């Protein structure tokens, strides 16, 4: 069962009526097949039109949808093999950031990403996708490993932000993020970053400083959460919707600004309504970019990545 978002209320109501009617029809009490079909068509149209014109704040909610595919769903649908690797060799193994060797369409790559978890239990285990220093240091280790063994790096970015807590600070959250960003920017292998859900600030940049950045149609990527921005600049978190619009957090905005390279389409009604279809589109895009990058030499790759960030926002 899909759980509906606040703005999907009209669709939810329609779908409820449809399932009630369906029950009646199943009981064979009345012949309402035509009515049912009409309503289903209406619901589909409504879903399509709603998702065609989502506001930035609505997209933020879609990007955070609890049923949206998460790291392990992508692993299942996109990669035919996954060999998980663990630990930062210094402190621990952070379950908020996962990674390992993987095969995508026969190619060997290193895949690294945030995992938010799908159930209450797993959300706690994965700390809601909020990485700690040991998570970013694991990412650094895996990226360096990929670099030495000539494996392209694919990242799946989905975090509200790096974890803000005492232990994260005392173990050097800022340094871990900075160093992870620096490692991205030092790789001699192709790197494709995918913003699949929330691209939350430094915790996202640390895994997204790649020469190719792909982003799902309804994903968001921003310097601070709309609520955070609103509470600082408007002095109330209630203005999150305005803040989301003003900050330009959507894939279309970021494409225009040159921050991302490709928008990956989602199924009608968002990736959470059809994991498989969403993953097919992402897989196609990842493969296309890996292909394009495969012809470049080590120094050309490094140069392309550096040039991308140096020229961003230039006059």
């Amino acid at each position, binding site marked *: 069962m899909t759980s509906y978002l606040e703005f999907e209320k009209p669709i939810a109501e329609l779908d409820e009526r449809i399932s009630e009617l369906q029950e009646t029809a199943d009981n064979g009490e009345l012949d309402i097949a035509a009515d049912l079909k009409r309503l289903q068509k209406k619901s589909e149209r409504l879903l399509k039109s709603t998702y065609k014109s989502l506001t930035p704040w609505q997209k933020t909610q879609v990007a955070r949808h609890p049923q949206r595919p998460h790291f392990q769903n992508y692993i299942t649908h996109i990669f035919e093999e996954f060999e998980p690797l663990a630990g930062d060799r210094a402190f621990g193994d952070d379950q908020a950031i996962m990674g390992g060797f993987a095969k995508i369409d026969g190619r060997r790559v290193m895949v690294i990403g945030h995992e938010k978890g799908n159930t209450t239990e797993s959300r706690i285990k994965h700390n809601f996708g909020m990485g700690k220093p040991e998570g970013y240091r694991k990412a650094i280790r895996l990226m360096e490993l990929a670099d030495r063994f000539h494996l392209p790096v694919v990242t799946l970015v989905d975090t509200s932000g790096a974890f803000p*807590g005492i232990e994260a600070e005392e173990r050097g959250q800022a340094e871990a993020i900075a160093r992870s960003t*620096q490692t*991205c920017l030092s790789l001699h292998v192709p790197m494709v970053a995918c913003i699949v859900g929330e691209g939350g600030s430094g915790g996202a940049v640390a895994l997204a400083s790649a020469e190719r950045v792909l982003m799902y149609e309804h994903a968001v990527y921003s310097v601070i959460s709309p609520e955070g921005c609103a509470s600082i600049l408007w002095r109330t978190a209630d203005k999150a919707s305005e803040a989301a619009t003003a900050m330009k957090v959507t894939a279309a905005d970021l494409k225009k600004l040159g921050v991302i390279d490709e928008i990956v389409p989602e199924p009608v009604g968002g990736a959470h309504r059809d994991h498989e279809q969403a993953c097919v589109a992402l897989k196609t895009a990842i493969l296309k970019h890996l292909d394009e990058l495969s012809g470049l030499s080590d120094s050309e790759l490094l140069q392309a990545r550096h040039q991308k960030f140096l020229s961003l926002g230039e006059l």
Partner: protein
Amino acid sequence: MSWFSKVRNAIPFIAKRETEDNLWHKCKNCQEMVFLKEFEENQSICPMCDHHGRIGATVRFVQMLDEGSWEVLEAPEVQSDPLKFKDSKKYADRMKTAMADNDYPDALTNASGTIQDHPVVMGVQEFGFMGGSMGLAVGAAFVNGVNHAIDKKCPYIIFTAAGGARMQEGILSLMQMPKATVAINQMRAAGLPYIVVLTDPTTGGVTASYAMLGDIQIAEPGALIGFAGQRVIQDTIREKLPEGFQRAEYLLDHGMIDMVVHRKDLRDKLASVIDYTMSGIKAA
């Protein structure tokens, strides 16, 4: 400023007198009143409690660089207000105010000069300019400072002070993190030292990028340095924060920086660090 002095200062024909406001400095730490002149002559350090006050770019250049050795580098031009951002106020208007209140056009200014005869390029972040926040102008100034240092074959020293990224420039402010990091990598490729001096306060995206990537990490005593803001942490964990949390000394204890250096010793310390890190380069 009291309402009275606000009104008085706004009236042009009444001469501005030397009042308590501009004669005295009240220490933010010990609350003691000190003569402003005495405070400034003491490098903006409270003579009573040794609290290091925040200082801007010009004062920092004067304090750190050899007299007559330095000149300010021109700020690179960047897009202004790329998102046409507006909250309760237009970003463009906030910028106008900030520019009018400050010596330089944005929050990071570089100077080229010498420290005890060692050539350096030095950048100073101005907390007074929109909280020192990092946007396109700060990123461009950082890259420019590094490029000058590479041209001069000398160290780049940055004095950080910032609340974080400049929200009004949205994602482009976030992109200054990798941008500055590319410059640091180029510094590294050129074999030149990159030295960070963390000053009060340095938080957010600035800490999580160029402020933590120095070859040598120095901090001023008592400086607040962290990734997440204290209120955010408190809201997340709902516990009291430990004594001295996110202060320079706390970072030293946790292995995050090399040294905490008193402002009066900073020039000597920088000269020493430069002497060691540049000795091999001179000989080559």
